[in-house]
């Protein structure tokens, strides 16, 4: 299975990545090489196999629904690129 440029652009948009014209070609080639490599998996019969999410995940523990940390607004905002009135600032999203 090979990806055409339209598909690569669509995936990039989904991933919020911008691929400039000069990077599009090499990236498309790399992705297709990787997908071709991955296609080996089709050789394996998995019709009777259950998917495995990971190891050590069979019994996810629950914790009590309690607040463990509070009054940490300063810590949360400490690394923000732009802050106003104790909030993160982003470009206008509502017209």
């Amino acid at each position, binding site marked *: 299975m090979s990806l055409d440029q339209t598909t690569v652009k669509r995936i990039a948009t989904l991933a919020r990545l911008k691929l400039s014209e000069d990077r599009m070609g090499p990236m498309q080639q790399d992705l297709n*090489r990787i997908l071709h490599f991955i296609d080996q998996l089709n050789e394996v019969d998995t019709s009777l196999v259950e998917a495995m*999410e990971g190891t050590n995940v069979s019994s996810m523990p629950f914790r009590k629904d309690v607040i463990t940390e509070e009054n940490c607004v300063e810590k949360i905002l400490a690394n923000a*690129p732009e802050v106003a009135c104790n909030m993160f600032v982003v470009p206008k999203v509502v017209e």
Partner: protein
Amino acid sequence: MTTPITKPALKNDLIRLTLAEAKEGLLKKKFSSLDLTKAYLESMESNRNLNAYILETPELALERAKESDKRLAKNEGGLLEGLPLGIKDLFSTEGIQTTAASHILEGFKPPYESTVTQNLQNAGAVFLGKTNMDEFAMGSTNMTSYFGSVINPWKRSDGKDLVPGGSSGGSAAAVAGGLALAATGTDTGGSIRQPAAFSGIVGLKPTYGRCSRWGIVAFASSLDQPGPMTRDVRDAALMLQVMAGHDPKDSTSASLEVPSFEKSLTQGVKGIRVGIPREYRLDGMDSDIVKLWENGAKWLQESGAEIIDVSLPHTKYSLPTYYVLAPAEASSNLARYDGVRYGLRVPGKTLDELYESTRSEGFGTEVQRRILIGTYVLSAGYYDAYYLKAQKVRRLIAQDFELAFQKVDVILAPTTPTPAFALDESPSDPVVMYLNDVLTVPANLAGLPGMSVPAGLSRDGLPLGLQLIGPAFDENVLFRAGSVLEEAAAFKSFLER
């Protein structure tokens, strides 16, 4: 075999000690933590050409060393009191820049400390700084770091600069070259074991769940596991003892008691069954690697182990499985870097433009490649064909190991298909690059502990590693067999040459 090796300026014999030897020296008051820490800081300064650290924290290290000396004077020292370590820049360290070697996190100072580094600090360890790595731990060369490549302290006979392996390449170069007494690493597909093999040190990836992942910048959450990188097997046991343990903040960390690792070191391998997986013998495998593997089996046999051929039939599907699952998890984990809450922000007129500009400028090429693959295999219409399929093959790979461990106690294989290569020999085709991890990835998929032990030299005089893989939560069998391999190989580290 005459190999011209350029020695770093070793002004001080203190930096040749192992962690265990340095610990003993401190307890016997032969030197202070301040002496030891200063020796390392000097060595770091005179070996900056290796680019092993992204950030050095000398003031903090000296301050902690003085505090350690006070505790040692009162005989109140912890298990790693006063011992200077390097910390991979994937571990969040409170108030100290943590970048994952990415431009997108440049300047980020975590408001919290990772559980593993907290455990090390509670035991009295002194941190020298944050070690270089492949960006977001994605790579096998340390060449994807935004902060530049790391140089392996070892040199080949042609004198070319070699890669230290990756992704924990800075930690490996630091431990091998005398820039840290020991270091932390993380291993998602071989990122502790492969650089350990390339740099002639010991690297241990514990069982998934043995150490907490809390506060470690996430790459592929079902595969990531932190572990020690050390000068010898004993040091690995010492470090793991402190790093390991259940953590309520990581729901996948195992609520099992941590056994004593040190006592396994002297238990030997008499009666232990060692499996040799025939599928790990790759077509056209380097003859040095084949010879090393045969030596390893012979050494274990001579020490009383039984050697048994085993089959892990789905081995060849490990890498394709990994290159679906790891990018899928990464694309999801790395969605958090949006230029809004922390890290780099590249301005845009709209919020989407801000996201796209920030992420395109902040992530390097390999990271973007993996995000795109991951996004594709998780996208509508392809999820079943790729992601679900890979999860099914993952189970078959794990079952191969379960069956093998009904017949044997530990598996022996090489760590890498080749010794370290030069920076300019690094493959440009990503798939060829991924083949570096062909022997290490299966243990991650199955969640099993694996250790690389330096065991010989290539014809070019470069270190080669043997890998031991054990059943889940049986790191002790790795320490038993690893100690035997270490003694038989009598490998001389870079600092001992």
